[in-house]
């Protein structure tokens, strides 16, 4: 007789560990299976961690989690070819009391988070790949792994196996990912002595800076770039929709090299020693690409369920949130003695709909479509606003009113009155 668990969680990223931790705390017997050598070994993320979702699970995480820096400054840059126009929000107040945004190294953070789940009683097994879901009729009753005697049974299987979720695809839970539903992001981690970073970014102690970049650097492709400060390194990366990469035939590394050479970034990145070069897919399809989220004996959480808010680059928090809510749903049903059937587990989706997870994703459900169909937002406007700033700031004997007229003319010339009006409406619709 094979051993039986209350729940099997596939994957030990933030979603899987949040689910496993919650279930174990609820007194359930949980087996968590990770493909990598250790939790975090396969993860690639910028990465920014939002305190809120983690705090719900581990209130004192600030005392023990491996955090890099907490963000006191966030910049948004609109890049032209050589210049940028940007906004900066800096609030050192965030460094007092309890900061809510941190940079982290996922390889360390995931390991720590999984350890917390283990301490709560989760049985974690690494270097083991789940190949298939085991079914009895329609009902999922366990998983088959790549190890000898590799079948193991449980009342419920939680799929937290990431954006590619081979498992969900094989089981027919989710269709093959479309190239327009995922972004391909490439990232480098560059090493610097702590003092260099502090000088370059005007930070001290545990303070950190995040820079988000949009504009001509993506060459009209829907995407963004980023630069985050860690304790002794910078993470710099760029990601665009896979379908756009395919269309434009630009290799991602070329894009990253160009970003690093941009006059706005070059001085910040000078003399770095490259420690890591990684690439990963990010589910960016948003609300409309969210698959069926549960069925007889299974639930899907995190990236596997396409839970990423690409506009606010939130992902790991949605992963933890969905992991926790999925686990709570299971706990509640079990306590009520209700079987984990398709209809009972629909409660999970209802919970998500009433949480910020689905509300946010629904809010931005048109963004990609609007940008994809109006690429001038990514090319023409960055150019126009940068030139406008240039015109306005240059002192050359031309009076300011004339300068304003010149700027207005440049906008009209490129986009026309009607064009400008319709762009405004489109943007408002996309982000409202």
């Amino acid at each position, binding site marked *: 007789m094979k*051993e039986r668990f209350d729940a099997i969680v596939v994957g030990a990223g933030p979603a899987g560990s949040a689910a496993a931790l919650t279930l174990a705390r609820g007194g359930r017997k949980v*087996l968590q299976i990770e493909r990598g*050598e*250790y939790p975090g*070994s396969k993860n690639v993320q910028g990465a920014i961690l939002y305190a809120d979702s983690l705090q719900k699970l581990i209130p004192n995480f600030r005392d023990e989690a491996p955090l890099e820096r907490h963000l006191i400054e966030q910049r948004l840059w609109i890049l032209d070819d050589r210049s940028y126009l940007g906004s900066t929000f800096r609030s050192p107040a965030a460094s007092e009391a309890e900061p809510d945004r941190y940079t982290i*190294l996922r*390889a*360390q953070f995931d390991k720590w988070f999984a350890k917390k789940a283990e301490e709560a009683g989760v*049985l*974690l*097994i690494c270097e*083991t790949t789940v190949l298939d879901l085991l079914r009895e009729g329609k009902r999922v009753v366990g998983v088959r*792994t790549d*190890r*000898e*005697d*590799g*079948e*193991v049974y449980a009342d419920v299987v939680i799929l937290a196996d990431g954006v590619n979720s081979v498992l969900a695809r094989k089981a027919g839970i989710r269709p093959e990912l479309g190239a327009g539903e995922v972004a391909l992001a490439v990232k480098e981690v560059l*090493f610097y*002595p702590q003092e260099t970073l502090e000088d370059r970014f005007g930070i001290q102690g545990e303070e950190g800076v995040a820079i988000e970049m949009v504009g001509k650097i993506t060459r009209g492709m829907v995407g963004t770039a980023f630069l985050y400060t860690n*304790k*002794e390194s910078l993470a710099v990366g760029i990601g665009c929709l896979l379908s756009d990469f395919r269309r434009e035939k630009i290799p991602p590394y070329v894009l990253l090299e160009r970003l690093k050479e941009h006059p706005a970034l070059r001085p910040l990145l000078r003399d770095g*020693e490259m*420690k890591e070069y990684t690439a990963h897919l990010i589910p960016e399809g948003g609300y409309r690409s969210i698959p069926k989220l549960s069925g007889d004996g299974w639930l899907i959480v995190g990236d596997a369920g396409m839970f990423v808010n690409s506009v606010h680059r939130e992902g790991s928090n949605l992963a933890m949130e969905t992991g926790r809510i999925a686990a709570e749903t299971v706990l509640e049903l079990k306590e009520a003695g209700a079987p984990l059937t398709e209809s009972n587990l629909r409660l999970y989706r209802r919970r998500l709909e009433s949480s910020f997870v689905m509300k946010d994703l629904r809010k931005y459900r048109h963004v990609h479509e609007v940008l994809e169909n109006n690429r001038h937002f990514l090319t023409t406007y960055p150019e126009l606003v940068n030139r406008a700033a240039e015109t306005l700031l240059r002192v050359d004997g031309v009076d300011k009113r004339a300068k304003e007229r010149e700027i207005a003319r440049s906008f009209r010339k490129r986009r026309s009155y009607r064009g400008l009006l319709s762009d405004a409406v489109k943007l408002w619709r996309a982000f409202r």
Partner: protein
Amino acid sequence: MRGPNIVVCVKQVPDSAQIRVHPVTGTIMRQGVPAVLNPYDLFALEEALRIKDRLGGRIVALCMGPPQAEAALRKALSLGVDDAVLVSDRAFAGSDTLATSFALANAIRRLSEEKPIDLVFTGKQTIDGDTGQVGPGVAKRLGMHLLSYVCRIPILDMDSGTIVAHRWTERGVQVLTSRLPCLITVLEGTSQGRFASLPEMIRAARQPIRVWDRKAAGIEDLTKIGLKGSPTVVGKVFAPSRRSERAECIEWEPDHPETAVALLWEKVLARQPEWAAMASADARKDGEEARSE
């Protein structure tokens, strides 16, 4: 016939593939570098497991290190080791190979009180220290025969208490017979590791690991462990400078390999002036000989 009682010493080391050197101080920066089971120890484990496959018996994995080193023992358990002991105490911090071998020898003595030990295995060295001294140090302290750089163990006879081991040396393979108990340091590449089954993985994840502090490991003398027990002095630490040499492509005609040889030889001589001088001296001599004939 009873199966042998085996101890395998393992160490958790920073993954050298991901290590970085501080550009100013030249020291290894461990922060953020994942720790792994010393790869050489995997061959020691596999050799022990093969003996257990053949003859039965029992294997204990022994590790000295900080509490996190438990992960290395967990890995050993998943491969089929029966028991795991972590010797962990702040007093061990800063131990060099002398202090480490003292501590491990004491722990093994303790283990032998539970049941006499027939064999101790270690990897040939660790990838962080690279000294290869701890295994021999333990053998000496325990008064065990030492068989180092072993690549094969064709015979282990528990009845007569003898073992035959092939020992790899620079001049060839020595075939040595030894009495038990003995300590064997295992060479890398001697075998292919195994892939544990799922039930074994689950068992390993569940099995408690015994953690011994200094006293439990039977160590009274504080001057023999940690920094105090470590006479090693680090004179200087430096990071080797980056080599800017690049590979070079040499074009030659496929039908005339001798052109490639000639070109290569020219390149070699260009880099090795002494050889060039010797080669031209030889050429002169050859020429003189040819003339005298």
